[in-house]
């Protein structure tokens, strides 16, 4: 918020006070309405995630249902149970979206703060409400902006705690999952290339730049710019595709 000017800050405060939304939602709505409060309200209320008041007792109960007996966190077993209750496969990508909303630090675990805070934000305090929200969350993946955020979030979430890079196998798994939602035909070649040629962990920069690559460069790589400051792995990938005749590039 410190990046906003005084006028904007005041508006955000007002907005939050009136709608009870989070700062993030307030800023989002105001930006979208070019900082007009009325317009922002319209946008906010026309969006499905209307902030409803959640019962904090219910939330506590829910948390305790899934929490690990020895540690104050929801671990693998708890998550499996949760998925069961939600009638969702634990590998389902919607769980990633859930984790994103919860701002979970690492996959396969939720802290108390993350779980409860996330559900509050989503306006969920029962399993039924949770289940209902799932289709909405799936739809969020179709939104370009949100997909990018979820994609970038996935890196930090999927990697080991304390590591800077993401293990290759995990990265490949995540890519398969993510690019099933937002189709990128070259994803299989990419994964193959990495296994054959790279065989090492993936850096954050490479991860985030890959999405840009998938979005901007066409399948014949005709608009791929060698001087485009792409990470070197992507440069090598292009070479790999050309060498193996997967793509015919006109070298000038």
């Amino acid at each position, binding site marked *: 918020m410190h990046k906003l000017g005084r006028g904007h800050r005041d508006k955000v405060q007002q907005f939050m006070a009136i709608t009870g939304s989070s700062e993030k939602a307030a800023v989002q709505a105001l930006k979208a309405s070019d900082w007009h409060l009325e317009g922002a309200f319209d946008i906010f209320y026309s969006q499905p995630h209307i902030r409803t008041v959640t019962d904090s007792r219910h939330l506590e109960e829910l948390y305790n249902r899934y929490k690990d007996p020895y540690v104050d966190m929801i671990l693998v077993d708890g998550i499996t149970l949760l998925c069961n209750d939600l009638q969702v496969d634990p590998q389902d990508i919607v769980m990633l979206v859930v984790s994103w909303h919860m701002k979970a630090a690492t996959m396969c675990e939720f802290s108390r703060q993350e779980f409860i805070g996330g559900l509050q934000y989503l306006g969920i305090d029962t399993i039924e409400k949770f289940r209902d929200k799932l289709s909405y969350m799936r739809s969020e993946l179709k939104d370009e902006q949100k997909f990018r955020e979820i994609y970038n979030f996935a890196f930090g979430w999927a990697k080991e705690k304390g590591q800077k*890079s993401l293990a290759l196998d995990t990265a490949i798994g995540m890519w398969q999952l993510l690019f099933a939602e937002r189709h990128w035909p070259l994803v299989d070649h990419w994964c193959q290339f990495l296994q054959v040629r790279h065989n090492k962990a993936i*850096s*954050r*920069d*490479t991860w985030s730049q890959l999405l840009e690559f998938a979005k901007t460069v066409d399948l014949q790589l005709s608009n791929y710019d060698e001087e*485009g*400051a792409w990470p*070197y792995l992507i*440069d090598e990938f292009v070479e790999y595709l050309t060498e193996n005749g997967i793509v015919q590039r006109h070298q000038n």
Partner: protein
Amino acid sequence: MSAQKKRNFKIEAFKHRVELDPNYAERTWRVLEHAIHEIYNHNASGLSFEELYRNAYNMVLHKYGEKLYTGLVNTMTGHLKEIARSIESAQGGFFLEELNVKWGDHNKALQMIRDILMYMDRTFVHSSHKTPVHELGLNLWRDNIIHSSKIQSRLLDMLLDLIHRERTGEVINRGLMRNITKMLMDLGSSVYQEDFEKPFLEVSASFYSVESQQLIECCDCGEYLRKAERRLSEEIERVSHYLDVKSEVKITSVVEGEMIANHMQRLVHMENSGLVSMLVDDKYEDLSRMYNLFRRVPDGLSTIKDVMTSHLRDTGKQLVSDPEKLKDPVDFVQNLLDEKDKYDKIITKAFNNDKTFQNALNSSFEYFINLNNRSPEFISLYVDDKLRKGLKGVSEEDVEVVLDKVMMLFRYLQEKDVFEKYYKQHLAKRLLAGKSVSDDTERSMIVKLKTECGYQFTSKLEGMFTDMKTSVDTMQGFYTSQYSEIGDGPTLAVQVLTTGSWPTQPSAPCNLPAEILVICEKFRTYYLGTRTGRRLTWQTNMGTADIKATFGKGQRHELNVSTYQMCILMLFNSVDRLTYGEIEQATEIPPSDLKRCLQSLACVKGKNVLRKEPMSKDIAEDDAFYFNDKFTSKFIKVKIGTVAAQKESEPEKQETRQRVEEDRKPQIEAAIVRIMKSRRVLDHNTIVTEVTSQLQSRFLPNPVVIKKRIESLIEREFLERDKADRKLYRYLA
């Protein structure tokens, strides 16, 4: 206002006009006319200048100037027409003579007439804006003689014919020519140009066009250029003898255009005689001539320069890629030096030390030296060879000359850091083996490198020298100390090397013989006694030993061997036979080194102090070694072992290159950080350019490597990508 009546005194003009009797005017004119006739008839001597002048004066005074002038024109014209007829009737060669003579006459007459009519010139002519007498005379001559239909073309044809004859070798009357052309010049520069110079230039152009076509078919390049040069000087001489000086530049550019500019490409590329063969055969005179001729025409010199450059690049490329030439590094470098000398000489002797040619030479060398990535190594080996033995007996100035020439090659290297690595290795070997011919020469080389690259380049090298010197002092101290009472045990000479300065070699310590161990420990104690906080590690792979050996018939020899070899040989003091495996176990020398040592001890003729069974060159696990009783050598001192620095084997080369690449990474990163710190935000391509230019004095960084380093810095959060423009990077404080 009171009008005071003034009495104005007027002086009335003299109203009395003296009218000249019209007859008087006519009579006066007749006198003058007669005088003009006489002058033209070479009868002037009987005339009175004073009287004629007075007559003319009077006419003008009494306003008969017009009559006088007109009369003059008519009279002169009449005479000139007569003269024209006489010239026209002259036959053949006499035409010009006659013209010349008559011109001379006319000038004399004109002068006299002008003198007589001086008053008219000054007053009447001036006020009525008529042409003055002298000029009038010239114009009349021009109109009536030169431009007369029967004379004009004949005159031009004669002149051009004479010039043509002279060009084809005949002797002509230059004096006459000079007079004629001077006449034309006197008549006005447009007369000279229109009536002579222009046609002259045209005719010359076609003459030289034809001649150059003929010559180019039958002459080789050198001959052609000689002929062209001769023609050029001929024309210049011609101008000085009988043409207007301003014609020189015009005629020379005609010759240059026809003979040189039009045939430049063909000349330069002529097979077996063109520029390339002149360069190959060091034909200084021909090259010099070509340079001097070609510099007169546009693009002449750049043509020579381009052909020279591409030839040089091809030759150079061959020099550095021919596998035959790559076998001996010293020869390789010598070839490069010779080539450089050759071209330096050519540029000095034939190309006037032209700077652009020097630059072309430099850029060509830079181009092909770097085509071979072993050039840095080879240049270092060349220097190594010279500093070991090659310069023995050579005077100091000559030494400096050779080293300076090598420095020239060094400057062309793009990968100076590779050279540094090799130089360090080779220097270390020289110093430790005591193989330098002269300490001064070594230091001189270091100074040159320092001047070229800065002190960082050479600080470690200097550290090596310091260590050597310090070691000498240390040894002195050791032997005067209490630790050195050994009796008749082995004598030790230690060189203590500071780790950072010397090239790192992984040292696997071997098992030293007991006697050696004892003295080594004594040294260690002595050394560490006076210096705290240091750790000594014996580099058994770098030492040497002198062993006294007695063979079968009592012959004694002193063997100079490496430390490893010494360990091996000492084993035979207690046993006669050992297998490879046993030796390996006892000494713990690394297998690859061990095999090489055994090979040089047992398989080399004249140095086989050990006998091997079987006699093969290869060493197998079960091979047995015996002390060779039958060893003979005509030398008392036999040297086995320490080999001079050789060019590296493939695996060694790979290793060195890898180390160089590793060293480059932090340098690239440091450059990136430096640049980003000051510029804050920068796009990818600019970073690459800046980094390259910052590091160019050491090596040429690979853009892919730079990219990887940037990504590594992003990973370590020194930099980030700009959120909006992915091609921009931002410095993170």
